[in-house]
């Protein structure tokens, strides 16, 4: 620690941070409180909902019985996981090739990747939707997963990560008898682990939250993802619906991911840092 940090500036900085943190956390707090409060008392004029046991039982009971919430979440997990695994499986070799191998077409591919980085993900959705419709794949996991398995962002991220990976290790591997393919899988993949973690968070956040695409391709409730499911649940009862139960559903949908991310926070930062050196 450096000498001479004034305590007044420290107090100001804490005040700023605490205020912001309260704003950040408040919706969660409200959601949790509302999920424990009987529907009729949530908007009873008090500042915050006041939880009761039977309210909690009611709301969570409704959330779990009125809609197949667990099924939605399971769909969400399957979809996010499938997308993530495929994205990584496709992006890592490509990122490695772009970073460390010179092959014909590499400059073009690199330009393609950079261009792809600029194309907002919604742009190609109309042709993809038509293609999925024509091949009868709407309302399926394939429809939810396929369009996203190529992530130019992942390719770019891994490429940046690999560019900083020491060439000497690759040379050592070549001398040790690794083929280029086994270098990609046996050396680059484990080495990219921190970047994989970072990317996973980017990817899971994006696809867990995505409403746009599920809204377009999914009509069968058996195939709904968590986001779509909650949006759907929200419509029930002409929207005013059962706020308590809705919040209970929100808590259930949010909890696993939040806990997972909080655990992974540090790795996330580390992955980003390593990718940048």
């Amino acid at each position, binding site marked *: 620690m450096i000498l001479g940090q004034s305590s007044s500036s420290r107090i100001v900085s804490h005040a700023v941070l605490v205020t912001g943190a309260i704003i950040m956390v408040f919706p969660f707090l409200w959601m949790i409180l509302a999920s424990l409060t009987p529907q009729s008392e949530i908007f009873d004029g008090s500042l915050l909902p006041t939880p009761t046991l039977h309210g909690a039982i009611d709301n969570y009971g409704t959330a779990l019985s009125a809609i197949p919430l667990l099924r939605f979440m399971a769909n969400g997990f399957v979809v996010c996981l499938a997308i993530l695994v495929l994205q990584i499986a496709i992006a890592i070799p490509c990122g490695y090739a772009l970073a460390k191998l010179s092959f014909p077409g590499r400059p073009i591919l690199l330009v393609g990747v950079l261009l792809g980085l600029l194309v907002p993900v919604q742009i190609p959705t109309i042709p993809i939707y038509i293609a999925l419709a024509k091949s009868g794949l709407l309302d399926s996991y394939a429809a939810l997963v396929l369009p996203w398995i190529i992530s130019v962002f992942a390719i770019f991220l891994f490429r940046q990560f690999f560019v900083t990976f*020491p060439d000497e290790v690759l*040379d050592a591997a070549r001398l*040790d008898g690794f083929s280029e393919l086994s270098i990609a899988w046996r050396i680059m993949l484990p080495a990219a682990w921190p970047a994989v973690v970072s990317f996973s968070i980017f990817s899971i956040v994006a696809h867990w939250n995505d409403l746009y695409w599920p809204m377009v391709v999914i009509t069968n409730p058996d195939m709904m993802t968590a986001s779509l499911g909650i949006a759907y649940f929200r419509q029930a009862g002409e929207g005013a619906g059962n706020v308590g139960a809705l919040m209970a559903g929100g808590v259930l949908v949010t909890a696993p991911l939040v806990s997972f991310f909080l655990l992974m926070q540090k790795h996330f930062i580390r992955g980003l840092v390593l990718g940048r050196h």
Partner: protein
Amino acid sequence: MAALDLHIDDIGKRFGAIDVLRGICLRVAAGEFVTLLGPSGCGKSTLLRIIAGLERADQGHVRAGGRGLDAVAPKDRDLAFVFQSYALYPHLSVHDNIAAPLVMRELSSLERLPVIGALLPGAIQRKRSIQERVRQTSGLLKLDALLERRPSALSGGQRQRVALGRAMVRKPKIFLMDEPLANLDAALRIHTRGEIARLHKEMETTTIFVTHDQAEAAALSDRVAVIFGGELRQVAAPADLYREPVDLDVARFLAQPFLNELAVAAPIGGGLMIGGSRIIIRDALGSGLAGTLAFRPEHATLAEKDHPGALPVRVTRIEHAGIDAHVFVDAEAGAQFVARISAERARSLRDGDNLGLTIDAERAWFFPSNGSRQRGDHSGTV
């Protein structure tokens, strides 16, 4: 173990418009320890990588034990490479790092798989044999206690030993080492260099070692190959190199910490006036050549101020160097020299003292501006 000789034949390499290597020819005998020495960027690493097959030469050939290597893939060249940055696999334990070259060579992809691999009959035996050899190597390098650690949990010196282990484990016929000591601190560098010497002695593997530290090169090598700007200037045993550098560049580079130099516009009648005395440069006699007279600090002596034939100088700085000391002196007309004298004697000297500098002309060199050096021979006193 059988070592191989290595013939490097007229190797040339360009990167873009730059000739990084030009017509390098070098023969390394089986079991010999040769150092490539030269300033940064002179092409040492490039040459080493060409030998390893990691880089393709634009011209020339490499042959080992009589076999041309040009068409051989790096992993089949039966040589091992030790990198300056160690180049360990960061995700593998020390054991697995050392085992990697064996595993990749001796196990099929199927056999390398963790569970299935264990079920294949041949694989078990081969895996045992690999483990045995890793154990031997780690014993030799005193790494036994570290086998389970990741490289990130090792000190620089330990990492370097693991890198050596990985290179040694499959008993290659030729060792290539690219500044393996550069990242270590002074004490560790000297210690590890002793270890490399010991290992070479034990295994007698043909070794090519890259460094830009002349002391390291001198301490380790049978012969030193000095490279400047992509050209091989001189190949010689350390002692010979010390005594007979072929040109001013080499002399300077090998004279760390210091080389005394005196520009000579044109010798007067083949001789040179220093401090009222004339040094006859025999080889330049009558040629009227311009050039540089050079001599090492240890070949200069400090005498009384009015010593006959000595150059009058004034002490400007004294640097201690163990048993000796370097004394920096100014001569007239701004020339500066360094003399290496015993620390004992240096104790009696002070900055500002007026002394006389004499040169051991037998050991001084004359390097004409164009061409290689001629030994400066003394005539009479200096």
